[in-house]
């Protein structure tokens, strides 16, 4: 039984049961992620409600262009990811590796843009809490920048984790582990990546496009 399906773990009866379990587990994990960021969104709502003017004034110091570029990058990476899952589904190994590589490169590009944004903020002292060292913004801009760095920082950590996960999937794809009969890991990595993308789609307007 297991010699025909080397990917089947000993405690599952069938490949279908294993794949359904893995996918369900992933959805539970994504629910957990949503609640994790949900806490931050509540903190954001609180600050927005307490200090609406500061929020409007401080967000002017974020670079909307860079944010928009990053949004485009991430949405494109979601497309390449979806194409990769499709390739795995139909057994196109070359396409699969290519799309995974494209997704990883786009993720890196996102981080590069983020690096330039962060280093500019650090340079001019637009920093969280006690580290804040810029002037010219009324109210409590250090709270806004605390939120900015916490939210985008945790998101960036998820992007970095995503690069490792996708890299691992890429290596496994290179070893020819995936086939139309077994590609759940690709699918699950894809689900994770789409969530990371989705969270950014909320972060971008909340932080950069406040009106």
């Amino acid at each position, binding site marked *: 039984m297991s010699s025909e399906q080397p990917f089947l773990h000993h405690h599952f009866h069938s490949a279908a*049961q294993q794949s359904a379990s893995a996918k369900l*587990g992933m959805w539970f994990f994504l629910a957990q992620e949503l609640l994790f960021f949900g*806490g931050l969104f509540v903190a954001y709502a609180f600050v927005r409600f307490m200090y609406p003017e500061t929020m409007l004034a401080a967000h002017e110091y974020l670079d909307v262009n860079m944010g928009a570029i990053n949004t485009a990058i991430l949405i494109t990476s979601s497309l390449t990811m979806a194409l990769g899952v499709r390739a795995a589904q139909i057994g196109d190994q070359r396409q699969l590796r290519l799309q995974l590589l494209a997704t990883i490169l786009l993720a890196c590009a996102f981080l590069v843009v983020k690096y330039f944004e962060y280093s500019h903020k650090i340079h001019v002292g637009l920093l969280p809490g*006690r580290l804040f060292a810029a002037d010219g913004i009324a109210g409590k801009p250090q709270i806004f920048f605390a939120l900015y760095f916490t939210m985008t920082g945790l998101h960036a950590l998820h992007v970095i984790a995503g690069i490792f996960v996708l890299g691992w999937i890429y290596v496994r794809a290179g070893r020819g582990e995936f086939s139309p009969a077994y590609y759940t890991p690709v699918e699950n990595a894809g689900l994770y990546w789409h969530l990371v993308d989705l969270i950014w789609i909320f972060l971008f307007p909340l932080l950069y496009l406040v009106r």
Partner: protein
Amino acid sequence: MSTTDTIENTGATHSHGSHGHGSYLTSSKGLLSWAFTLDHKRIGLMYLCSVVLFFIVAGVLALGVRLELMTPAGDTFSPDTYNKMFTLHGAIMIFLFIIPSIPASLGNIVLPLMLGAKDVAFPRLNLASFHIYVIGACFLLYSLLAGGIDTGWTFYTPYSSESGTAVVSALLGAFILGFSSILTGMNFMVTIHKLRAPGMSWTKMPLIMWSMYGTGLMQILATPVLAITLLLLVLERTYGIGIFTPSLGGDPVLFQHFFWFYSHPAVYIMILPAMGVISELITVHSQKNIFGYKAIAYSSLAIAVISFLVWGHHMFVSGQSEIASAVFSFLTFAVAVPTAIKVFSWVATLYRGSIVLNTPMLYTLAFLALFTIGGLTGLFLGTLATDVHLHDTYFVVAHFHYVMMGGTFIAFLGGLHHWWPKFTGKQYNEALGRFCAVMIFLGFNVTFFSQFMLGSQGMPRRYHAYDKVSADLLPTFEMWHRTSSIGSFILGSALFIVLFYLLHSLFRGKPAAKNPWGGKTLEWQTESPPITHNFATDPVCEHGPYDFDVIEGADDHHGQAADKRG
């Protein structure tokens, strides 16, 4: 990373292949075969040893607190030491003992067995959850060694963002432990969904599965909110980000909302598995089908859902709006409905059952009595007007000890005694078991009923010395505090005897039968202790978990099932 995973995985498969039919305790030897095992039973046992160890640490801290309160003056420990003792007692009991106690230790072992599965859905995640638990425990213990923390286990701001004690490591410890809990919950939910034996529909599952499912739901949806809260508090302390501290522009009540959004569901994370254990124990030891299977099952889910809507009842005196308080109060009363459904169903199960007053059953009866008192006094606290009087008094302390210790811990002990023959293949000393169950029940009531008396008279909680609280009430306070302390020493001594005879049974205990209690659930069909693969042939579920009307013995029944499949 992928390489080690694969090696580890194939290694495990090989060892399963060659030793799959030996006892899981002895199938492979050496420390590493335990530390890196993927076997849910071994992981469960490692959890069991860890939680018991931490229970002893936190229990000794509690005895220290009681020792101080023997006399009204603060003469045994310094105020700082006292604050650190009750904080660590709470933090260790909550994060290192109660939350993982029933699900991660007992549950880990029995859940796949009761479902007729070979393992949990994700064995590697299960091991990771244990390793994360150990890392989190190290952080929490580091704060003990680095001078302790004095914020109380609730870490309320603004004090927690200013206290000079080792708060950050404790926060990170609780943060890390949360992920261990999330992974366990996820794993159990998927296992329940996907790995039930053929023939086991949702309503043929043992009721403990419904509790574990509800618990998993809360672990997944509530714990991440605690994680982000603790992370924000760490940032508050290190960078002064100004979310929670009023002097920096933050709101301490926001912290309370965040904290209780997790920590109230967490209370049900602690009690729901205990309720599941009681459903199993009460049927087996009265040899009677459960009364109201579906009512108990659905009430588990109802408790899980309502648990998310009641957090504000911890904050009636925090300054939240009165309308919010009234709504939270009403919703709190709503939780009493599914809870009462369970208690009534258990009592109805006992009616005309063949009750055997053995150790697990004594714990079950103790649970019913203590949990009912704990639950009903919860309504006093959920009522706005009385809560204002009772808030932050010993009444609250007594209430949650009746629920957490009288409920969860007693059920943990009951479950431990119930499944001990299955886990270890050994029978403990029954006479000592009964004696200790009675002593624990008595000691518990002496300890904590006194605290209801104290609290209703207005004795505030967390006081190091009470000689200056009230001249009129001093003799009353002193009398009840002394009674409570004496009770705690009875309780502590009885628990040490339990530890002693359980360990003794490992070496000198009589070998246990496959099914010593005549249980009908699947875990009793395999050997005691189970083989590494759990079952020699994949079990088929042919009757409900509590069909005590089925005449043939569980062993014969299993034979038939295997024949039919073969």
